[in-house]
């Protein structure tokens, strides 16, 4: 049975976390809570809070759990130790109603402020909707922020307050940034999210493990397959099953292809924001070619739902290799064309270099992972640090930047596309024959000839479809390197075919939490470019 590694008393939280931090666990990945109201086992109390931390070598992670006193529902905040805890604690408060004592501004982050109750509690009905009529002024966050920067109330007259978003062409989705400006310079910025919060985690609790896969598609819809893989891998690890060698390599190939299209979209959109529309056509053409390949393989363009727990939906089709070669050629041509326009372009360099700089230690404290962190010079890539699916056997490099500015982030993405192509080429050579899916009637649907041919097959199909895959009781955190960074799933199982609780650790959520501090002191126009370069995907941070 899977358990969280450390179980501590709630009054020891601050001591334990600070000790872990001193021992090198410098990256706070996620905070969530579990509501044990309907759990089959009796527990110390109704709610428990879970912290996930990763150490400075990035190889190990640790999960810390504490039960919360039913009467007070209060634990101490750790937001002064980790920047990332600020939003993580707010989300846990929003969804579960756990109060973090000492948090500077404990308010909702995903649901609108008129919302009553805490939706992820087990006694909140899934479909109980609440109409929202008012927008939030955000002055409750802006005033203390300005005060901390030395502005008095009288100074407010000299500042211009401006909303960028929630529906703004340059905000790439539904983000609202509320900025206080002096001239063109942003002096203070407050970010509000939740406009695309569509209840991923609550919906997981009413569907079987397999039915969750389409929901994961819609987390980061630019690289749906990487989300499928991340989720399936976590569930497979809970089930303690090993997928077949062929399935592993196909997951690597298709996963890297998804990473390529994700980076293409991000860079294309980024350069549109810089005023270079031509790059958009150059980079979208290979992306459309990739989608043709994906729709041939999976039946869908964008939301592929390609993985199954224990394997994959389809094997590669005849002629896949030829199509893949063409796609890779197109991608290489696309990035060469796009780079030829910007590489030595003075305007491009001036607009991106030394703009939106993320410092290394701030990035770690804010829980930023993936290309954004690597651009800041930290060589953290789960494919290298904690390899899975045989990534250790492929020759490829971690791409790191030196400044952590917009330029680095764009170039890191371009180079990562090249590295992904390297991986794909090696993987295609090593693609083994053999079965695609695990042969386990408790996990994988039987072949259609058995469903229609014998009673055992028919019953097996019915059992798996109606009851779902029985995942052993326990709590588990599994993670993969998605296009934006570490994508983790903290899954709680009660032993039935439906997840008791799934918490997704979305890489964007933490990048966006840090965004406001990154753009302060810069120009408004630079904030737009910074936003595009950090690749915020609304479906992911809002879930």
């Amino acid at each position, binding site marked *: 049975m899977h358990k969280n590694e450390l179980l501590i008393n709630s009054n020891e939280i601050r001591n334990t976390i600070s000790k872990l931090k001193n021992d090198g666990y410098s990256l706070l990945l996620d905070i969530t809570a579990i509501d044990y109201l309907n759990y089959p086992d009796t527990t110390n109390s109704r709610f428990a809070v879970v912290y996930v931390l990763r150490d400075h070598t990035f190889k190990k992670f640790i999960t810390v759990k504490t039960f919360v006193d039913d009467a007070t529902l209060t634990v101490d905040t750790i937001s002064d130790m980790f920047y990332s805890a600020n939003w993580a604690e707010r989300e846990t408060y929003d969804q579960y109603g756990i109060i973090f004592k000492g948090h500077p501004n404990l308010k909702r982050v995903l649901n609108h402020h008129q919302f009553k109750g805490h939706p992820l509690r087990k006694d909140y009905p899934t479909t109980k909707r609440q109409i929202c009529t008012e927008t939030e002024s955000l002055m409750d966050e802006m005033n203390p922020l300005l005060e901390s920067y030395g502005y008095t109330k009288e100074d407010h007259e000299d500042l211009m307050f401006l909303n960028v978003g929630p529906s703004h062409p340059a905000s790439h989705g539904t983000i609202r940034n509320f900025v206080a400006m002096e001239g063109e310079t942003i002096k203070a910025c407050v970010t509000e999210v939740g406009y695309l919060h569509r209840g991923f985690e609550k919906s997981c609790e009413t569907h079987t493990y397999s039915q969750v896969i389409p929901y994961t598609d819609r987390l980061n819809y630019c690289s749906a397959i990487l989300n499928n893989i991340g989720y399936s891998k976590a569930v497979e690890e809970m089930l303690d099953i090993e997928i077949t060698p062929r399935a592993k390599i196909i997951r690597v190939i298709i996963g890297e292809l998804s990473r390529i299209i994700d980076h293409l979209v991000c860079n294309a959109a980024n350069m549109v924001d810089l005023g270079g529309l031509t790059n958009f056509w150059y980079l979208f053409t290979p992306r*459309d070619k990739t989608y043709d390949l994906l729709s041939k393989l999976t039946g869908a363009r964008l939301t592929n739902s390609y993985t199954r727990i224990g394997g994959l939906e389809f094997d590669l089709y005849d002629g896949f290799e030829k199509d893949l070669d063409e796609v890779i050629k197109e991608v290489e041509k696309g990035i060469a064309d796009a780079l030829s326009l910007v590489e030595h372009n003075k305007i491009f360099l001036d607009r991106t270099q030394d703009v939106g700089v993320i410092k290394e230690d701030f990035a770690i404290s804010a829980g930023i992972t993936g290309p954004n962190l690597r651009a800041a010079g930290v060589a953290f890539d789960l494919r290298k640090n904690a390899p899975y699916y045989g990534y250790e056997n492929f020759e490829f490099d971690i791409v790191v930047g030196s400044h952590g500015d917009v330029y680095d982030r764009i170039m890191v993405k371009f180079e990562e596309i090249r590295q992904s192509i390297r991986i794909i080429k090696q993987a295609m050579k090593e693609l083994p024959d053999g079965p695609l899916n695990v042969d386990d009637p408790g996990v994988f649907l039987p072949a259609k000839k058995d469903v229609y041919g014998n009673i055992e097959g028919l019953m097996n199909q019915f059992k798996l479809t109606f009851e779902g895959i029985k995942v052993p009781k326990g709590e588990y955190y599994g993670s993969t390197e998605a296009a934006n960074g570490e994508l983790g799933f903290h899954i709680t199982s009660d032993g039935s075919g439906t997840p008791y609780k799934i918490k997704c650790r979305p890489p964007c959520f933490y990048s966006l939490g840090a965004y406001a501090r990154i753009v302060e002191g810069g120009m408004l126009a630079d904030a737009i470019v910074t936003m595009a370069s950090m690749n915020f995907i609304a479906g992911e941070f809002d879930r």
Partner: protein
Amino acid sequence: MGLGAESSFGDSIITTKLDHAVNWGRSYSLWPMVFGTACCGIEFMSVVGAKYDLSRFGAEVVRFSPRQADLMIVAGTITYKQAPILKKIYDQMCEPKWVISMGACACSGGFYDNYTTVQGIDEIIPVDEYVSGCPPRPEAVLDAVMRIQEKAQRESVLDDREKRDHKGFLDA
């Protein structure tokens, strides 16, 4: 000097029905206001991309400015937090205006039957064309644009378009 029909007509006068001329102009110069929130928004980027090329329908001016737009394309999930914003932007658009609801979420909430998702944007604003799919293929969106064009062709400037009896949960 013109290159097409105008080169042979010179500066002569052409008579036609007012409706015909206005509708012709409207249907081939739609200005979409894309309310893209999620996956469908990404797929809409493909629609304006080189391959599917929305420009062929005279509707490539995507400027995100409600006061200049006449075609609203709601591409993505609308949550209760987002709903008042959608309504506000729709209200800011001048008449005549049309609405395409793109994808399962905008049409019906999709498979997000939970506490946060609006179960179809017609609970807030009137919709002219629904496009199924999650997300729809770009061809399906082009099809909806063509149906809007047909709709625009059938109208008369004499009719009062304002008389819509739609009432959503955000209308007082």
